[in-house]
């Protein structure tokens, strides 16, 4: 997988790759990111088809409770109320991913706006935003979530809001740093010297070059939101029974750990594999998008 033209046996001409072609190539040559991508694709697939092909509903109860996998027509067994674990777990993946994607979209939007403003304009605006982030950072994220969810209840949008409130500052901080870095580059100075308007500099010159870090943050924010959502559910401040959230399922499985460990292991391992696959993809993207590593094996 060398890009050295002398070793290129596929064609007579040396390969010339655009930045994004090179990124794609390097991402797909990374074993761990392939593993992550396959695990995620598998989970997304069963999340889409699972609830459709399962003949059980997520909250329909069966008289066979806590049955082992592959008995009485339940592929992954039933929980303590006789609900089908396969149906609940696949719906749980849907819920986790939906929450995570919505939260990430909003967080990145907030981060890009606030971070961009702070990073580009600097001065007093930057100081205010930075000090606000400092303050927000020392409050443990669990407490902010507790406050919001106890006031407004635990509906979908309240949980999304709580997760955004706990995650907005990391995207903001990162995007601020990224904009500040790009801003000081010579081509931005050149654009300004040639009389480009601020809006043009931001949209045409700084924006595109600050995108790679956003893509990486996107992956890690999705993974982080899935984790935080499950932590809230476990602590009793997120989704509650009977919502089929992975955290809720794990929380309810605690009492059966000795005799029916699969009730814990199925949602537990799915949560871990789901987060891990996204973390692996994020790691792979970070390496692939880094222009400094370009051309290296």
């Amino acid at each position, binding site marked *: 997988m060398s890009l050295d033209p002398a070793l290129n046996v596929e064609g007579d001409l040396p390969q010339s790759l655009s930045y994004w072609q090179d990124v794609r190539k390097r991402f797909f040559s990374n074993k761990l990111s392939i593993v992550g991508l396959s695990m995620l694709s598998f989970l997304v697939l069963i999340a889409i088809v699972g609830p459709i092909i399962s003949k059980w509903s997520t909250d329909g109860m069966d008289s066979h409770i806590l049955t082992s996998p592959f008995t009485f027509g339940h592929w992954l067994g039933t929980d303590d109320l006789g609900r089908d674990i396969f149906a609940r777990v696949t719906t749980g993946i849907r819920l986790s991913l939906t929450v995570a994607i919505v939260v990430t979209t909003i967080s990145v939007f907030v981060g890009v706006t606030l971070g961009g403003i702070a990073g580009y304009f600097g001065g007093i605006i930057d100081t205010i935003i930075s000090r606000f982030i400092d303050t927000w950072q*020392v*409050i443990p994220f669990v*407490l*902010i979530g507790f*406050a919001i969810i*106890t006031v407004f209840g635990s509906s979908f949008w309240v949980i999304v809001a709580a997760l955004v409130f706990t995650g907005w500052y990391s995207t903001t901080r990162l995007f601020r740093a990224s904009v500040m870095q790009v801003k000081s580059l010579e081509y931005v100075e050149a654009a300004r010297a040639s009389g480009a308007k601020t809006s043009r500099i931001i949209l045409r010159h700084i924006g595109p070059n600050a995108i790679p870090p956003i893509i990486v943050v996107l992956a890690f924010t999705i993974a982080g939101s899935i984790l935080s959502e499950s932590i809230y559910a476990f602590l009793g401040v997120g989704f509650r029974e009977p919502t089929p959230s992975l955290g809720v399922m794990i929380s309810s499985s605690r009492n059966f750990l000795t005799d029916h460990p699969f009730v814990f292991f199925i949602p*537990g391992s799915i949560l871990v594999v789901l987060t891990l696959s996204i973390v692996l993809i994020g*790691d792979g993207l970070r390496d692939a998008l880094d222009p400094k590593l370009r051309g290296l094996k």
Partner: protein
Amino acid sequence: MGTMFTYTIKRLGQMLIVVWAAVTLMFTLFFIIPGDPISLKSGEKSLPPEILHNITVKYGLDQPTIVQYGRFWSHLFHGDLGYSYKNEKSVNTILHDGLATSGRLLFWGALFQLIIALTVGLTSAIKRGSIGDKLGTVFSVGIQGIPVFVSGLLAQYLFGVLPFSMHWDWANFYKPWPTQWWGVIPTEGWKGLVLPALVVAVVDAAYIARMLRSSLLEVLRADYIRTAFAKGLSARRVWFHHALRNALIPVVTVYGTSLIAIFGVAVQTEKVFSLPGMGSTIADSALSQDSPVVLGLAIVVIAFGAIVNLIVDLSYALIDPRIKVDGKANH
């Protein structure tokens, strides 16, 4: 030294402002909660209006919010954190009890974390490319996807259910620990401390170890390391005296961040292992909308995080003489 002194004072001032702002934010968040002592005490019963009035006056809830805020600070400066809405217990007592458990858990957790991180990081850097090193990489990537409550339950299963078949000696923990919270070495009930402390430790230990490894490998490429070897110094001396010292600089920051984040870890660990610490007390009080307890304990957590932040910044300036102490030094 003069600059170091002014830098310390400046950072201290910033820390105080951040703590004030964070506490005020928490006050705002928790005093818009519709929880009130009346509904917590009476439940479904309806109380005579005189009693309702007395309760409201007792907690100062008849005053405007700004007066309540002023009183809150005045009480805080006198070392009084207020009283629980639920059972009239003083928040100071609740804090004292919670700290006894949490302090011990976090002390041992942070200590284990440091030991594991240093050992694993050093060995994997010295023996890089070995099987142990590769396993370390896989482990440190894998642990990132496991939330603490899952690893806690997994630990309970692996060490409590599996080997001793239903014998929950190591996993069914809580036998009350000695009540003096300063006695960090529990003489009885220590078995119950090992597993939760390890769960707390493992979360970031792998990450810190990776950080130490890559930072060590980077330092080892430096010229002065080659010079040290060329002078004929022993490998041990070069590793510990020249390399480790410089490699520790980025690690200190990561260790500090992980200490600040340890509260989120503690809440989950205490819930999983049913330990009556600060974390589980805050969680339960927040759920029952017992605002004074949440606020009182949160102040301690926030102050702890801010102090760790300050220590990290100062030690950063102390360890690395290249960092100029001029206000731009932080980060």
